[in-house]
């Protein structure tokens, strides 16, 4: 009797579980699962967006084309440069700023909020501001000239391969430095004070304290932040798109997503574009898998 009741209770709960989950599944099916499956299928076809002719099956041709294409490797290279060039300084500086904030006793919140402020702006607005700053007559040249004591040097922020890549990184760095600083601040805040106290009683100075206690305990947060930044960087699109429409050369900032957009929308080659999307998907899948593994280890460390 009791067993039967328990069974029906479980059944009821299972049904309610499905009821709670199904609305979401419908949305995910229509707007995520179906499009990605569709993209996967399209990547084996040649289809001209404009043509009324039926798509032609080409097998792996779109993929082999990409591996031979100089432009594709250039966009991979650009994405890699942007990703590495962004996340290393971002992680290093946000950690430094977080340590600074935790070391002072007043105005902690003020500094966090000020550093975080740019993250509030939309990327279109950010691109708009920085386009004017990077103008040859803009603040970037004025600032650099004042800083380095030169006069009238044009640092070619938008009109030089490497400077343009740097400029793009600066925009991202500016927008997210505060976000990651705040992350690290809460990471440091989560370290049990007893550990710090114990170390101080053992006579550790603050330098040793940081390297022996704070940094090792922050490792999971650091790893997590790194992987998260990398995934975000792989997806980067708007600023590159807006910069290249504003006259900056496309080649140095032609990241994979911009390349996908151009291949599909400008060149009408939907097959190649979706093949690129699938490759990007695979890379991001790997990164996310790593991230999920890391977040699991983090829970183990802190619990």
């Amino acid at each position, binding site marked *: 009797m009791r067993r039967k009741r328990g069974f029906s209770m479980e059944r009821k709960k299972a049904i309610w579980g499905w009821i709670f989950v199904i609305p979401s599944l419908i949305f995910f099916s229509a707007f995520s699962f179906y499009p990605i499956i569709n993209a996967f299928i399209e990547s084996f076809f*040649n289809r*001209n*967006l*404009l*043509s*009324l002719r039926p798509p*032609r099956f080409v097998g792996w041709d779109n993929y082999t084309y990409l591996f031979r294409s*100089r*432009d594709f490797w250039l966009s991979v290279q650009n994405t890699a440069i942007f990703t590495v060039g962004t996340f290393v300084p971002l992680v290093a500086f946000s950690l430094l700023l977080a340590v600074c904030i935790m070391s002072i006793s007043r105005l902690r919140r003020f500094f966090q909020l000020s550093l975080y402020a740019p993250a509030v702006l939309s990327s279109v607005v950010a691109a708009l501001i920085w386009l004017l700053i*990077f*103008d*040859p*007559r803009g603040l970037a*040249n004025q600032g650099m*000239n004042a800083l380095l004591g*030169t*006069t*009238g*040097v*044009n640092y*070619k922020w*938008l*009109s*030089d*391969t490497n400077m*343009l890549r740097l400029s793009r990184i600066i925009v991202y760095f500016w927008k997210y430095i505060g976000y990651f600083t705040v992350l690290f601040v809460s990471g440091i805040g989560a370290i049990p004070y007893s550990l710090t106290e114990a170390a101080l009683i053992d006579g550790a100075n603050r330098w040793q304290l940081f390297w022996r206690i704070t940094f090792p305990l922050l490792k999971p947060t650091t790893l997590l932040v790194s992987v998260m930044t990398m995934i975000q960087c792989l997806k980067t699109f708007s600023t590159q798109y807006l910069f290249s*429409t*504003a*006259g*900056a*050369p*496309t*080649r*140095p900032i032609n990241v994979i997503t911009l390349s996908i957009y*151009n291949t599909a*929308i*400008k*060149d*009408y080659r*939907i097959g190649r574009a979706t093949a690129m999307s699938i490759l990007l998907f695979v890379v991001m899948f790997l990164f996310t898998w790593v991230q999920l593994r890391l977040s699991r280890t983090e829970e183990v460390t802190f619990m």
Partner: protein
Amino acid sequence: MERETLRCTCQTLSRKGINALKKALLLFFVALSLVFTSLASAQNIEIVYWTHTDDNRTEIENRYIEEFQKLYPNVTIKRVVYEAAKMGDLVLTAFSAQNAPDLFNLPIEQEYGYMIHGRVAPVNYEAAGYANAEELVANYLPGTFDPVTMDGEIYGLPLELTNWSIYINDRIFRDAGLDPDVDYPKTWEEMIEISEKLVIREGDIVVRRGFDFRYPYYLVAMLPMVEQLGGALLSEDGTKAIVNDEAWLQVLEWFREFGPHGRNLGSPTYTSARKVWDYDNNDIAMCLSGFYQQGRLRIDNPEFFESGEWRVVPFPVFENAVQDVACAYYGHYMMVNAQTTPEKQYWAWKFAAYMLDHPWEYLEVVNIIQPRNDLLNDPRFMELPYMDVFMNDMERGHIVFLHENGYQFERFIKEAVESVMLENMDPREALDILREKVQEVLDDQY
């Protein structure tokens, strides 16, 4: 109502059996179809018309729409505007998703692909108010329909035909000790020399430019420069990319010299030349633009417009040019979606022709030229400021390069020029990359 009908049907069934039911059902369907057809004929035909932003044109076209809807109350026109730069992408995605507008206009070099792929419908001459193709052609400047003619059918009505010449700010010329009457640039070599005299820099930072291009439009302005030197993008039969390397290299080298890694005179990263030119703010002395620039100038800076301190001079040529080619002219043509219903196509053409029947107003209010004979032969036409320069340059030029992949080629040329100007790439390397890319597209048609 429905329930009532149902109850009736049931009663009939019980009383007179199956035959009666059949009769009733038949009657019901007849009535239903009658209702539907009457609804359909009374229903409005909605024509969706996509066009690019142009404040002056919006004003007059909204009035034409009102008038047209009054004439034909069963037709509604939905006019939707987009920025010119985004329009190509949007029309393309709309067509690929089978969701395209009934009527639209794009630059002809972009529209060409739609013709090739059968996405647009030939002109319905009757709807447009002509007896046949010949009558339509005879009404316009000879050659107007060449770019939109395929297999004897005409696919578009011209909204505008535009070419660019050089606008000059006389005050800045005089300020730099130049006499705009004689010292204006006639060759590209002079363009660099004169720009050098006009430019003001603080250190390396340019605060006043002499001249600058309109960079995204390479097929319009840069390809003719190559042609002046005997080069071409494609061979005659269209199978081989890049004709005459020397011509291309000279032009690319010219751009390198003009840009920030050369003599530092201008660059695509500066504020759009023809916009700042209007402000007469000691920013730029010369820009490249069409007749319509005067309309924009009148709005942006009426004082400068009235001052008469500006002029228009012809498109320059290289000193060692082998042929005289001016800036290519490009057009916007009204086109009609071939996948829409014949009825909608009919009304779309009728509406397009109705709008385009006001060439003088388009010229006066919007400053765009519709090459209709009645307009061009009007004595008032040639008296418009600098119209002679534009018409003369139009004779020296030809229609912009047309190809199914023209849009894509323009992007490749853009990349080549940017590499040379902004990345200081060797022109030969940039040309090799350009050739490789264009050739690949040519070899891989599907």
